[in-house]
């Protein structure tokens, strides 16, 4: 059973990415605060994957042939939730209950226990690439051609476990594994370049045996091209997409402002953010 998804236009993807940021703002307004910056830097990446590239069936979230997506930077979960909602995995009504009460199905970090379409409970940074590697190994053993995508933050890749998985993906020749680093340049305590310098990232990943591309993480055409699934058995190198992004992208007063990594939002700020996202500032 192949699920075909109406091919999106780039303009349609841009609209969906805008909707994603609006949904996220609503979730954070319901909760009173949230990781705005981390969500908005990866909203375009997630939108392109869910609405143009990944093979999915919302009616059958555990469909064995679906492409896998591990949202390793789990603190930005609302971006994933919006994609799952707009793609039809769970209802829009769940937005209003985000983090509002004990038992809310949408919480700060993605959880398989409560959310259909989530491939792993994530939030402890540095887990996703190892788990994704296991799924990619399983695909080989099962002779399935799904692709496993793992989205990480640029602060997250300070974690040693990421590099354990980096070694192993090359060892096992996992051409069915695609890593993405959302390089928004900021983490909790400051600029990632100061907290722990990781550049040159392209050289680092390449030296670990990955095929590496560096793109503008807000350029939808570039994302469409770089993230397109490749299903040929002959692929023997894991792929890494270094996506340069802007933390808080889409709302000017949040862009590149460290405090918006995780902050409370006032009703006035919420209104201003929505107006800007809706294109009526």
């Amino acid at each position: 059973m192949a699920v075909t998804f109406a091919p999106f236009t780039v303009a349609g993807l841009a609209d969906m990415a805008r909707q994603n940021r609006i949904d996220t703002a609503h979730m954070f307004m319901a909760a009173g605060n949230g990781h705005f910056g981390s969500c908005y830097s990866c909203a375009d990446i997630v939108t392109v994957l869910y609405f143009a590239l990944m093979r999915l069936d919302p009616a059958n979230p555990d469909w064995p042939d679906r492409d896998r997506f591990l949202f390793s930077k789990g603190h930005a979960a609302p971006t994933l939730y919006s994609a799952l909602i707009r793609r039809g995995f769970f209802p829009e009504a769940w937005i209003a209950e985000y983090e509002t009460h004990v038992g809310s199905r949408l919480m700060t970090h993605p959880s398989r226990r409560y959310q259909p379409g989530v491939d792993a409970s994530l939030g402890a940074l540095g887990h996703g690439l190892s788990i994704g590697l296991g799924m990619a190994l399983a695909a080989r053993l099962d002779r399935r051609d799904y692709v496993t995508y793992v989205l990480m933050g640029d602060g997250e890749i300070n974690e040693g476990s990421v590099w354990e998985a980096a070694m192993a993906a090359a060892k096992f020749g996992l051409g069915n594994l695609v890593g993405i680093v959302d390089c928004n340049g900021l983490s909790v305590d400051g600029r990632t370049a100061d907290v722990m310098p990781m550049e040159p990232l392209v050289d680092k990943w390449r030296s670990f045996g990955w095929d590496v591309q560096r793109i503008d993480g807000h350029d939808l055409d570039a994302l469409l091209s770089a993230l397109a699934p490749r299903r040929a058995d002959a692929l023997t190198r894991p792929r890494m997409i270094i996506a340069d992004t802007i933390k808080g992208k889409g709302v000017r007063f949040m862009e590149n402002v460290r405090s918006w990594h995780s902050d409370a939002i006032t009703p006035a700020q919420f209104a201003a953010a929505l107006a800007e996202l809706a294109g009526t500032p």
Partner: protein
Amino acid sequence: MTTLRTGAMIASLADEGQRVTAAPFGHTLARLADTRADIVGMTADLGKYTDLHIFAQAHPDRFYQMGMAEQLLMGAAAGMAREGFMPFVTTYAVFAARRAYDFIYMAIAEDRLNVKIACALPGLTTGYGPSHQATDDIAIFRSVPGLTVIDPCDATDIEQATVAAADLDGPVYLRLLRGQVPRVLDDYDGGFAIGKARLLRDGADVLFISSGILTMRALQAATALAADRIDAGVLHLATVKPLDSAAIATALSRPGRLIVVAENHAVTGGFGEAVLAHAALQGHGGRMRQIGLPDAFLDAGALPTLHDRYGISTTTIIGRVKAWL
């Protein structure tokens, strides 16, 4: 007796002349995998010292060498389990408990994934010092919700626990004895079942409630105590979690005897404390004593010497029980 040196780090725990079985875990797993296509084996460069090399030789297409990377090992096992495979992952207990704990807790246990973590060198079964002595693993893994924790006594326990772990849908931590493993429990009625205690012998004066290799020691001690007309029994709990509370309650309901909890683990947070807490909550007012390793970083050295020094050799157990009576 020949002098044992520290180099005997992976020495057998068997006494001279004791019946042993080679690599019970490895052979059992390899056999299981003959009929179960979902079983895969993964290790962090310790296949040889966890007996997983036997599985690897039998099923090379389902064996994954992950290198010295325990976080990766557990994360990748979670990913494979998520896709329907049943990974048996091996390393030393210290590395699973201390280094990979976050991955076991979050990636494996929270999603109740079907990963079996089999770890060698549990408690004080190596003379290599604190870097390799997992005197804390049970305390750590007891605190993981939904994780079944098994501390087998001998080769029989290991063989049966390996099969039982494969039959259980959920994560398991199995303390592994590898190499030439003593075979003791064949001489007793019953067999291993997850969550079930076995009363190996009853006793009117003393009852050992023990897990792991301390059950073997308790049996030896009970035999020796009988020569001094001390009637000692042994209740063996190979499953530390979930604890067989009914069996413990029955054992405690018999008045007048000394209860001795015994384990190959530090006295803090392990099996003994679990049983003691259980007894306290049940209102047990009788005498209870605890045998286990001290709350300390242990020395390196030959195992028999260390077992004497830290109070888990048969001789020291006998002496302590006599002193308590």
